[in-house]
């Protein structure tokens, strides 16, 4: 169907945009939280370790929040507690 295809293509564009958004937010967050020592030019091993853990944790947290979000959203729709704009 024409409409379905158009919507699909818009959603794909949005997905790409969202992906870039997650990437830049993650860089910002892990940089801010992990990199505070500017006595050297390249990342220290402990900073690198921190960044890896920061990214891991962020993804795990996001996954968990996504599950909760879906549950809560479904629950809200079921109860007819529509938010403004719906």
């Amino acid at each position, binding site marked *: 169907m024409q*409409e379905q295809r158009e919507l699909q293509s818009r959603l794909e564009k949005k997905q790409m945009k969202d992906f870039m958004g997650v990437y830049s937010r993650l860089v910002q967050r892990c940089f801010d*939280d992990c990199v505070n020592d500017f006595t050297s030019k390249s990342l220290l091993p402990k900073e690198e370790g921190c960044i890896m853990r920061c990214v*891991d944790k962020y993804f*795990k947290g*996001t996954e968990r929040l996504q599950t*909760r979000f879906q549950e809560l959203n479904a629950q809200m729709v079921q109860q007819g*507690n529509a*938010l403004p704009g719906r």
Partner: protein
Amino acid sequence: MSFLFGQRPQPSSAEKIAAAEAEVEMVSDMFNRLSDSCHRKCVPADYREGELNKGESVCLDRCASKFFDVNIKVSEKMQSQAAAGGGAGGMGAMGGI
């Protein structure tokens, strides 16, 4: 999202697409805001391990639930304000669909 395409006085294709897109946009925006707030509030900035610990996990669960509660409370409050004819910050701010 099947309800979006259900029986209604036949909106045009462009309208249907715009409505579906707005719906997705709104939900994903809400999720992003929830995610940012809850990460900030629940996950401390010292990354001693890459796993979420028990406390952080429970905090995220409760944070998500409370975020929804706040959404509902604010929405109810704004609706009653608008109904009371308060005007300011009422329907105007809701960009109603």
